[in-house]
């Protein structure tokens, strides 16, 4: 069955102010039948049944360890008098990407689903809250963002994660197949299902998925943001790259070397990972007093960051290879593993493929190289994708690492349904028709990432693995 997408009735959540920038206020909206109860999980105790609809209350925001992580305001709007026509809660935080990212993560852990592009407006339209004219505006939003994010998430999700989740679903489908065969092909000469080993297998599956989810929670960068620092020689284009990434002019950019004398910080969310990015003053020998202060600071920044993006100007690389290597050596050896080289201004090179092939001196450094252009945006997706994959590859207890809240959320739903089936077997209710219903829900949840599940797929699996037919 195709996943319902926009027609799903889950309670949805999203950051509705700019999630990337520091600003006075950051807003999260929750909409759906459980909006109130999910909001309560991170609000103070005073946010309870006694509050009135459409009144603004002060609250602390607390995390799962009962620690306060922000102070703000909260408002509950009872259906149908709300933007979407459903129960809505809006949570007002300080506009800090870290706080917002943490809050949305907690809400999702507690049962909300990250909304799809335009989904709040879509619900408002379905509930008769906005007009057709307004809805047509959303339709372009749904179309464009969907296309964009679909392509993007596909590209960013090439490595381990997709394979990992696919393999989890594969395992579940095999369990599902066993009960389905026990129903549709019970008159065939096939081995009989052994429910105790069936449910033991599922228990192992649940343990495995739990580990994967716990690893995710343990990994700090994903919740607190991944620190990236742009480092490089003056005028290599660090600030242009930084701005390209942010999509706005924040650092002062000019062709004169040494424009950034201090560090500049910004945060953005790509996919659902928070990046905290630092632009630094250029590194060079023989700088003046003010500038060398800046350089000192740049080196400090590089130590504090999770990843160092060493920017090199491709157009002058051949002339300045020696100086580039000397500059690179200013960064301590112990920081080496964090470095990625960004070969900027690749648009100025006539044949970028040949050019890259010929950079033997660069290759000898054994540092990953990405050819990009701050001017045209070329190479950015590839480079960001690789960063995300890197994050998803760090050590943990699970068989693979997930990198996104979305994965965490989907795996949680799947565990819940599988647990239902295990409980039934434990209680002695070994009825395949009910067990199948639970497993189907779990498989469909994972299908939101791996692509939809269809009964035809399952029948194909049965026919290709077993001799069926009288």
């Amino acid at each position, binding site marked *: *069955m*195709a*996943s*319902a*997408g*926009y*027609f799903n*009735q889950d309670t949805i959540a999203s950051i509705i102010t700019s999630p990337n920038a520091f600003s006075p206020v950051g807003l999260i909206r929750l909409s759906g039948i459980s909006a109130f109860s999910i909001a309560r999980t991170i609000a103070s105790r005073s946010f309870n049944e006694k509050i009135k609809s459409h009144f603004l209350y002060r609250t602390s925001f607390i995390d799962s360890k009962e620690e306060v992580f922000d102070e703000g305001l909260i408002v509950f709007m009872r259906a149908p008098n709300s933007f979407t026509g459903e129960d809505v809660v809006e949570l007002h935080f300080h506009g800090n990407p870290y706080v917002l990212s943490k809050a949305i993560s907690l809400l999702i852990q507690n049962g909300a689903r990250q909304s*799809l*592009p*335009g989904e709040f407006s*879509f619900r408002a*339209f*379905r509930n008769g809250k906005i007009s*057709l004219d307004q*809805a*047509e505006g*959303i*339709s*372009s939003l*749904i*179309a*464009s963002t*969907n*296309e964009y994010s*679909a392509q993007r998430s596909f590209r960013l999700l090439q490595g381990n994660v997709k394979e990992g989740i696919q393999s989890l679903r594969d395992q579940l489908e095999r369990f599902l197949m066993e009960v*389905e065969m*026990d*129903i*549709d*092909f*019970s*008159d*065939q*000469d096939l081995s009989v299902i052994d429910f105790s080993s069936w449910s033991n297998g599922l228990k192992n599956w649940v343990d495995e998925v739990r580990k994967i989810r716990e690893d995710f929670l343990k990994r700090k960068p994903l919740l607190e943001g991944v620190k990236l620092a742009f480092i490089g020689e003056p005028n290599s284009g660090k600030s242009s790259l930084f701005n390209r990434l942010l999509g706005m002019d924040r650092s002062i950019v000019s062709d004169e070397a040494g424009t950034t004398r201090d560090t500049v910080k910004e945060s953005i969310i790509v996919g659902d990972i928070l990046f905290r990015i630092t632009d630094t003053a250029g590194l060079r020998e023989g700088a003046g007093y003010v500038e060398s202060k800046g350089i000192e600071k740049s080196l400090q920044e590089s130590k504090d960051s999770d990843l160092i993006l060493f920017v090199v100007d491709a157009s002058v690389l051949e002339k300045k290879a020696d100086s580039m290597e000397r500059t690179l050596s200013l960064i301590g050896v112990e920081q080496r593993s964090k470095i990625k080289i960004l070969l900027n201004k690749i648009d100025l090179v006539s044949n970028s493929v040949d050019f890259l092939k010929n950079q033997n001196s660069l290759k000898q450094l054994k540092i990953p190289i990405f050819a990009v252009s701050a001017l045209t945006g070329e190479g950015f997706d590839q480079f960001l994708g690789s960063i995300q994959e890197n994050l998803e590859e760090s050590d943990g207890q699970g068989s693979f690492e997930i990198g996104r809240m979305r994965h965490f959320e989907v795996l949680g739903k799947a565990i819940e349904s599988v647990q239902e089936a295990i409980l039934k077997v434990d209680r*002695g*209710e070994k*009825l*395949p*028709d*009910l067990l*199948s*219903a639970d497993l189907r829900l779990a498989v469909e949840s994972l299908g939101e990432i791996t692509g939809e599940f*269809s*009964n*035809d797929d*399952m*029948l194909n699996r049965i*026919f290709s693995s*077993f*001799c*069926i*037919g*009288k």
Partner: protein
Amino acid sequence: MDRVDVIVIGAGHAGCEAALASARMGIRTLLLTMNNDRIAYMSCNPAIGGQAKGQLAREVDALGGEMGINTDKSALQYKRLNMSKGPAVRSSRAQCDKVIYSLRMKESVETQENLTVAQREVRGFQVEQNKITGVFTNFDELIRCDSVIVTAGTFMKSLMFCGSTVEEGGRAGDTSANKISTCLKDLGFELIRLKTGTPARLKKNSIDFTRLQREDGDKFPVPFSYFSHSNPFPVLTQLPCFLTYTNTRTHEIIANAKDRSPMFNGSIGGRGPRYCPSIEDKVYRFFDKERHQIFLEPESQFSHEIYANGLSTSLPLDVQKNFLSSIEGLEKVEISRPGYAVEYDAVNPLQLKLTLESKNIEGLFFAGQVNGTSGYEEAAAQGLIAGINAALKTKEKDPFIVSRSDAYIGVLIDDLVTKGVDEPYRMFTSRCEHRLLLREDNGDHRLVEKGRSIGLLNTDKYSYYLKKFNWQQNLTSSVKFNFLYPKEIEMNKERYEALGLDSVKDKLSFLDLLKRPEWSLERLEEEKFIEIPSDGLSEIEKRIWSENVEVSAKYSGYIDKELELLKKVRDREGLSIPKEFSYKSVSGLSNEVRERLERVSPSTLGQAMRIHGITPAATALLYIHLEKYSNEQRTL
């Protein structure tokens, strides 16, 4: 016979239901068959039902179809499958006497008011302005009509294969209908080539049954039809089947003849069903499997031929003879009819609406195997729906569509017209997303009122149903509103301890007690907690009628959850897409998605969502534009 309302071409399992449904709804109907002696003929397995097929046959019955009643008139052995797999998936199956089955159905169609049966071959269609207006027969007649239902089965351009022998025909001993296939092509229909097969029939007295495992039917058989209440039941003397197995020697013989199999030497190009493979298919693909089970089934009480279920084949006769005699009990077997494969033309069902009327030619319906399905039950279900809709068309009434949440029939037809087929389609319970709701025990509750409202289900059946319905209501209230009180337990401590009920602290309804796995209505009655009313019912009726009450109680939690889920999808399932709606007007759809939508042209948003490759975002866009469209229509 110059003019009728509805013409049905083909009198197989689809054609008979189609013709009966239309005639019973008061429409003048003509049923044409190439051979009056082959009406509702069981060309393959002499049985009705099986997993998911039992549900289909019973749904046909609940709407007012004939299959269930005809099965009860001819059953030689009843068996309900999946009794331990949960009530949702229990399925009836019956071995039938194929001679009686055919003759009883012949009697029904011949005596049906408004229905004429005639032996003709259809050679052409009369189509005016994309609307069918009549058919031409092999006697150069033109018979005019409003609608035509094609139920040609495997008979369009059919070829039969047995080794290197190739003959024209849709069934051994019968011919092929070649003209009709060409006419459909000329009308612009896309045809596909499919394949099916059947095993050899064996001479009963050449089999040594003493060495084989005997398989009898159920001790307490359950009739197929919700409305059967014949006494005595079963009607016919019940007969056993016998079980034997192939062995490595059998497989060796088959493997050695691989190059003589038309399936494997390239003679047959059509796709066969994977769930019903030939024995050579099984041996070649699963060579490791040491044995395959073979059921030897009686074909008729008048016949000394035995059906060898599990041995469908198109190998040459000498190989068939060889591998058969390697099987235990068949050492001296004689073949009365060789097995063979049939390759035939079918209509790609993507060209049909949910009513089974074609999208391009008004009034032209298709049902049964010609739509790429396999099985008598799948055929009957489609025949019934096509017959009903052709009749409604003449009456100028709204079409009749059964949804996926109403019945297996709904799943079957929606799958066919939404996804198309690439092999003969068979129903499975796993194809139904609302399986817990679509049970055999509630088929009548789901469909009788529908059958009644379109004027198909007759008064006799309907009043019998109401009697059952009231009886079940009474029984339900008596378990719901009678209680076990703690005081009573206190007074008879020993007795309730033995029943495991001594810990009950609050009053407990017998309905709640019934929800516990170890309790059943029967046990409640044994313990004298309740009385199951007799009301002059037979033991069989009491037993069958109780089932629904018990299952509804035991599964109530799951059923409620399903119904809750269903409510959520109902609005989008119900949102219809007008025929003239243009997908080009939906900005933001990719070309690929738009092409798929145009090809299937779904009639509801729910159907659109089930088309392969349609993204959630695409359905959301479609929804907005459909609302916009209907708004524009209103203001025009």
